[in-house]
C-alpha cells in the first residue's frame, strides 16, 4: 500500500514560539522579502502561526494555530491549475512543480487556507547568505507559486535510505523541518495508511478536527484541540 502522509498538530502543545516558521525558511530556501515587500503582504511563510484573540480584558484568551498546506485529498488548488503544476502524488501529497507553473495564481485563490505563496520578484540572497541554501530544494524563480511540500525532499531521502537498506520506513523516521524543530512536539508527521503510526493514532483522537472541514477538502492535517479548562 502506498504511503499517505499526514500530520497532526496538537494545539495543546503548541506555544506559538515560531521555531517551525524559521525551520521552514532554513530548510526550503524560502526567500526573505524585506520590509517594504512584507508591508505589501508578500511575506512568505509556508507555515505560519495564526493567533486569534477571544474575549476582552481581563478575561481574554488567545489561541495559536500553526497553519501550513493541509495537503487536501480533494484539494481545490489542484484542478484549477491549467498546466498541472499543482497536482496530487500517489503518496497523497499536494505537489507543486515549479517548472510547470506559469503563475496564474489561480491555485492560491482556490485555496481556502491561503497557504500558497507567489514569487513576486526574483528571490535575493545577498552573498554569502546564498551559501546556506539547501541543495536538496530548488530555488523558485520569479512568477511561480510555491508552498509547503511536507518537506518532500526529506521524505524521498528517507525512502531512498530505507530502500538501500532493504527495509521498511519506520514511523517517525521522516520529520519535516517544522516537525523536527518543534521542541514541544506539537507537530507529528507520519503515514496515515499505517493505523499504528503515531499520526494515525492522533488523527483518530476525539480532540481532533480538520481545518474548515465543512468545505469538503479532506485535509490530511488534523488539529487536536486544547481542552477547555
Amino acid at each position: 500500500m502506498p504511503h499517505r502522509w499526514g500530520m497532526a498538530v496538537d494545539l495543546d502543545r503548541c506555544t506559538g514560539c515560531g521555531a517551525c516558521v524559521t525551520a521552514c525558511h532554513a530548510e526550503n530556501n524560502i526567500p526573505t522579502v524585506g520590509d517594504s515587500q512584507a508591508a505589501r503582504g508578500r511575506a512568505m511563510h509556508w507555515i505560519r502561526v495564526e493567533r486569534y484573540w477571544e474575549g476582552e480584558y481581563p478575561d481574554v484568551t488567545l489561541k495559536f494555530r500553526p497553519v501550513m498546506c493541509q495537503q487536501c485529498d480533494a484539494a481545490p488548488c489542484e484542478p484549477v491549475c491549467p498546466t498541472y503544476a499543482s497536482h496530487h502524488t500517489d503518496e497523497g501529497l499536494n505537489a507543486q512543480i515549479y517548472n510547470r507553473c506559469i503563475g496564474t495564481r489561480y491555485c492560491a485563490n482556490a485555496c481556502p487556507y491561503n497557504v500558497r505563496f507567489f514569487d513576486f520578484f526574483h528571490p535575493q540572497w545577498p552573498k554569502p547568505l546564498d551559501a546556506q541554501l539547501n541543495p536538496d530544494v530548488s530555488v523558485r524563480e520569479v512568477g511561480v507559486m510555491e508552498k509547503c511540500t511536507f518537506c518532500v525532499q526529506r521524505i524521498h531521502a528517507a525512502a531512498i535510505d530505507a530502500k538501500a537498506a532493504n527495509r521498511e520506513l519506520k514511523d517517525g523516521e521522516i520529520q519535516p523541518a517544522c516537525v523536527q524543530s518543534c521542541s514541544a512536539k506539537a507537530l507529528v508527521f507520519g503515514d496515515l495508511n499505517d493505523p499504528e503510526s503515531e499520526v494515525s493514532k492522533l488523527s483518530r483522537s476525539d480532540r481532533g478536527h480538520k481545518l474548515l472541514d465543512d468545505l469538503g477538502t479532506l485535509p490530511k492535517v488534523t488539529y487536536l484541540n486544547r481542552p477547555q479548562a
Partner: protein
Amino acid sequence: MERRDFIKLTAVTGTSAALASCGNPEHQLIRFVPEEDIIPGIAAWKPSVCPVCSAGCAVNARVMDADIETVRNGQRGVVRMNVAKKLEGLPKDPISRGGLCARGQAAIQITYHPDRIAQPLKREGARGTGQFKAIGWDEAIAELVSKLDALAASNDQKSLAIVARPRRSRRSELLAEFARRFGGPPPIAFDLFGDDVLRRANAISFGHDQLPTFDLAQARYLIGFGADFLGTWNSPVAQNAAYGEMRQGRPGIRGRFVQVESRMTTTGASADEWIPVKPGTEGVLALGLVHLMNRGPERTAPQAAAASRADAARPFQGGDDEYTPQRVEQITGVPAKRVERIAKELAELRPAVAIVGGPPLAHTNAMFTALAVNALNTALGSVNQPGGIFFTPGAAIQGPAPSPQTPYTSLGTAKVLLIDDANPVYTSPTAWKVKDAIANIPFIASFASFVDDTSVFADLILPDHSFLESWVQSSAESGSLEAASTVAEPVMKPIHNTRATPEVLIEVAGKLKAPVSLPWKDAEELAKSAQPPATSNQRPATSNQRPATSPRPPASSPRFEEPRFDGDAAQYPFHFLPYLSPAFGDGSSAHLPWLQEMPDAMTSAMWSSWVEMNPQTAQKLKVRDGDLVDLTSTQGTLRVPAVIFPGIAPDIVAMPVGQGHEHFTRYASGRGANAISLIAPIAEPETGAVAWAATRVKVARAADANGTLILFAAEMRERPHEYKVR
C-alpha cells in the same frame, strides 16, 4: 531573466566576445583548490552550541558543500567548502533534545550575514561614522599590542576596560584571566535583563545561586508569575519540551497551567487561566496562596511537606499571616474567590510548581516577589521533587559577578577598551550615558562580527569567527535535570579572514612587551579544559559538586512594599513594560533577516517595533493600529506605532526590546525604536539589578499610521462580522 543575466547579455552583445569575458567581474573569479575532502551532495551532521541566548542548547549542524567567495593571498576567488546548511537541536542534548527555537535556527545567518565583518578593520573616518578600512591581521594585532604596551609602560594597567557578554563560558574566564594577569579590573559583563535577583533569591531559599530547572513533564499544576518561560526566559527550548509533555505526554493526565502577569506573553497565551495583576504585586498573590495552604481550609497536602511549608514563610517578617485572600485582592486586584480557588486547585493537583521570572523580578520589590514564589514552591513541596523545581548539577563554570548598580562607571576613566560580543551602547539605560563614555575612550578595540551601536565607535575591529567556525563549549546553568555540557570542534572552516578571539587574545598576551602568560595555548584547549583555572579570583561557583550552601537570610527581611516607580503617576499615568522580544531577545539577533520577517506570535508584526496598548486605552487616546504615539518617560521620548492588544491592562503599555539599533547591519539599522532608552535606571536595592519594569510613561497620539508598523495579519482589525449587526 535575472537582472544580472541581463547585464551579462548586454555585456556580451555590447562588446566583442573576446572582451566580454573580462567585462564581467564574475568571470574573473578564480576557482581555488578545496582544502578539505568534499563529497558533493552528501550531508554530514556536526554538533555545536547555539550562541544566541544563555540557555546553551547544543545544536546539530547539517554540513554540505557550497561555493564560497573568498580572498586568498589578495586574489578574489571561489572555493568549494563544506559549510553548515541548517541548524537543528542535538537529539542527545538534555537541553534541546532535538528541538531548537527560532532564534537558534536563525543563528546560522550570523555566519553567512552579508554585512559580517570579513577582515580586520581600522577606523578611517570620524568616530561613530562607521568608516573603516581593511587591514591585515599582523597590523591589527600590532596596533592592539602597542596600545596595551603603552598602558603598561605608563603603569596604567587599571585603565584597561573589558566589556564582555554575560555568559557562563570559558570565554569569559579567558577574558577575566587576561584582565587579571595584565593588571586591569575584571571584565564588565552586564545583562540588563539578567536574573541576578532570582539567583540571589534561590541562594537564599534553596542554597543554589543558580537559575532553576523545572520538571514540568511530571507536573500536574503549574503556576507562572510573569516568567515567559516558553518564549524568552531561562531555557525556553527545554521548557517547551517539558511543557509539551506536561500537557499531553501522559495518558489521561493533563497538567493545568495558570499564568499570573500584567501583559500576556506567548507563555500566558498558552495558559488555561490567565490572571492579570497589578505590576509588582505578584509576590503578594504567591504569599496569599502560601497562606491558604498553611492555614486555610486547603490544608490538605501530605504531612511530609508540612515542615518545609513552615520553613517557607520563615524569611518573611510576620510570616504569611497578613496575606489573607481579602488582603491579596486589595493589593493585587485578583478577586479573593479566585485566590481561594487557585489555592484549592494547587492543593488538589500535585505535583505542582511555581515559576517566577521576567517583569515581576524587575521591580524595586523584586527580591520579595522571588522569595515569595520560592516560599510557594516550598509550601507545595516541590523542591527537588518530581514535577517540581530542580537545580541543574554540574554547572561548573561560574557566572560573571553580579553587576554593580552602575556597571559602566569605570568606562569614564578607561584608556583602552576591549569589547567582546557585547553592545553596551544599545543595552544601557540612557541615563548611564554609556555612549558618551565610550566615545571618549582614547582607544577601543572590538572583536565584533558586525558593526553595531557599540563597535561603530571602535578604532580597531578584530573580527571573531562565527560560532560555527569556532571551538565552542557550553555548560548549562539550567534547563536539564542532569549535568549538561558540550564541547564541539568547528563545524566548518572560516569563510572570511577572521580569527578566533581567544587565539587573538592569547597571541596579543604573548606579544606584549611584558608578556602575559595565559593557561591555554589556543581556542581548542580553552574549550576542552575541564576545570577553571585555580587562580580565578571571582566569586565561588555554585554547583552540586560543591557542598550546597545553606539558605542564607536576606540582607533585610522581605516584606511586601509597594513597588516604587520612576515618574510621577499623575504626570506619567502608564506603566511602561519593556519585554524581551521573542525574535530578538535583547536585540542581539535583530540583524538576522529570518527573525525580522518572522511574524510576532502575539501581534503578527514583522520588521517593526511597536507599543502595545489595551483597546480601551487606545480608544481613549483615539489611537488605531499603526498610529504613531509618543511615549515619554523621565528619560526621553520615543515615537512608535501602536498595536491594540487585548491582553494588557489599561494602565500598562508594553514594548518589545530589540529594534531601534542605530547601527546593526542593513537589516536592523535605523529600524524602529529602542525601548531600553526609556528605562529609568532605578535599582532593585538587594542586588543592584536594574528594575527595568519600574518606569512610568505618558502616552500621546502623535500622528497617523505611516506604514512603519508591518503586520502579517494586517487586515484582521476589521472585526469579524459576528460582532456586528448585519
